[in-house]
């Protein structure tokens, strides 16, 4: 009798050695899912689709819809009727200046970070080794991951009128230079911490690591033999840089510029803390939705960076920048 039971079990299940019976509901469920790959993928993708689809895209669409509403000028209440009036308000000189100012700032920050990032990335990719490789890696990662507000705060210390930069210029007997720069209209001001120049420096500092990393990644993929071949074939270092290295690093620069450009477009904290009182898009959105209570105009303002970034991403994709991310 004790021998008959396993025998009859074997008769029903022809290959017990291979398909070992599995106990427990969870392993069975997992096995079932694994045997249905489509179901498996569906189940894995479902949570993130629900989360991002409902929480993120859902609220994004709700916001966009509100940009087609308008605000009643007398009661201050939102009128829920389709209109393009709010978008028309963006073209008023005061609002349009805000957009222009922000785009200009984002472009100059992007150009400046590309110029500053290139030598760092190039050195780290091509020459740094061993200990120096680690120093460069941490030297880029530390400012990247340090607290955003602490970095802004550090620059408030640096740029303050009584701060280290003024002191440094005085020690070098260059106070006249600093004063000359501050005397320049528009970008200058009372001190660096209340000027456009200050805003520009801080933006460049904060987003610089976002430019270095993709540029470095794309430079690391350039084979050293390619550069040697170009040199062997008679290219001067300058030609080599311009005709071989730069074109191959360009997707990295474009990928980095997506970050520097987008992050500058939407930031409202840096210009609020360091800079003149003239507004940027982010600040306009913040005040319109907050103190002014004009959600439709705030929503219309947010559409501007979305459209700009849409065009930007589309052209970046055509340049193959996404492979360098």
């Amino acid at each position, binding site marked *: 009798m004790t021998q008959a039971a396993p025998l009859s079990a074997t008769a029903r299940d022809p290959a017990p050695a291979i398909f070992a019976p599995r106990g427990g509901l969870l392993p069975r469920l997992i096995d079932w899912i694994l045997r249905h790959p489509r179901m498996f993928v569906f189940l894995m993708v479902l949570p993130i689709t629900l989360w991002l689809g409902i929480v993120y895209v*859902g609220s994004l669409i709700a916001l966009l819809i509100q940009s087609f509403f308008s605000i009643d000028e007398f009661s201050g209440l939102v009128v829920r009727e389709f209109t393009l009036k709010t978008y028309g308000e963006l073209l008023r000189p005061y609002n349009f200046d805000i957009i222009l100012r922000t785009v200009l700032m984002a472009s100059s920050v992007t150009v400046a970070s590309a110029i500053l990032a290139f030598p760092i990335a190039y050195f780290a990719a091509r020459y740094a080794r061993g200990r120096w490789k680690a120093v460069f890696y941490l*030297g880029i990662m530390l400012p990247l991951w340090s*607290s955003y507000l602490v970095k802004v705060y550090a620059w408030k210390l640096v740029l303050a009128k009584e701060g280290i930069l003024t002191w440094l210029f005085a020690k070098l007997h260059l106070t006249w230079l600093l004063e000359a720069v501050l005397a320049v209209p528009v970008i200058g001001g009372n001190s660096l911490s209340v000027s456009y120049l200050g805003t520009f420096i801080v933006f460049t500092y904060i987003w610089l690591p976002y430019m270095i990393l993709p540029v470095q990644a794309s430079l690391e993929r350039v084979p050293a033999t390619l550069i040697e071949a170009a040199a062997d074939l008679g290219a001067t270092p300058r030609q080599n840089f311009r005709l071989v290295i730069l074109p191959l690093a360009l997707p990295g620069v474009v990928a980095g510029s997506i970050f520097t450009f987008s992050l500058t477009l939407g930031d409202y904290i840096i210009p609020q803390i360091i800079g003149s009182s003239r507004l940027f898009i982010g600040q306009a959105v913040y005040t319109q939705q907050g103190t002014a209570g004009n959600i439709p105009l705030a929503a219309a303002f947010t559409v501007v960076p979305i459209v700009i970034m849409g065009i930007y991403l589309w052209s970046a994709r055509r340049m193959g920048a996404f492979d360098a991310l």
Partner: protein
Amino acid sequence: MHSDARAPLALRLAAFGGLIFLLAPIALIFVYAFTTEETSYQWPPPGLTTKWLAVTVGRPDVWQALGLSLKVAAISTTIALVLGTLAAAAVSRSRFFGRETISLLVILPIALPGIITGISLRSAFSLLEIPFSTWTIVLGHATFCIVIVYNNAVARFRRTSGALIDAAMDLGADGLQTFTLVILPNIGTALLAGGMLAFALSFDEVIVTTFTAGQQTTLPIWMLEELVRPRQRPVTNVVAMAVVLVTFLPILAAYYLTRDGEHTAGAEK
């Protein structure tokens, strides 16, 4: 790309100059934390003191803000770990309808400026009449933490050979065993690194948080209030230094974890 030649002098100057530009302002924080000057940002500091360390430790508002920040970061990271890993596994293992859409959807919260995430969540909360709570903050944070975990996990899944999983199943491991004994050890360090970075990101986030926090104060919001209207500069100096120290450790750890991950089993294939 690697060269044994020595770098040109101009390049070396530019590279090291850039590194100093990146690190010097952070170093400055450490000096200011000990200054005796209370009302301005005077340099050089007139004197050094450790008095403000003790004062900061005794401040309940700082501790409360810190507690809320840690809580939000822990919950958001957990959500991001689950959602991000699942999506990464699906995207890197198989091709399916909507695969490109998923990868775009994940990138979107960081490709678009944070203020857009913030204001759309804020207006959604007011439309649905959801009151502000810890959970409204978490909702915003998890959304952009997902991408960090996802990126780390996708990179590791690509390097881990799919043959390993097939081999484990062929040798009789059930799905759960395959996951705990084969998949998890292979992606573990990538998840840990991604999780820590997501934690750091959430711990530090301010732009989205100002829209989703209502009257609650996370540590970054506390800092922001001090930045806009400086009231206790010495305490702010000390908090800033503490925050730098706290973020420095996960970065170091993540560096060593992902570096060792270069030698993933089956990656030679």
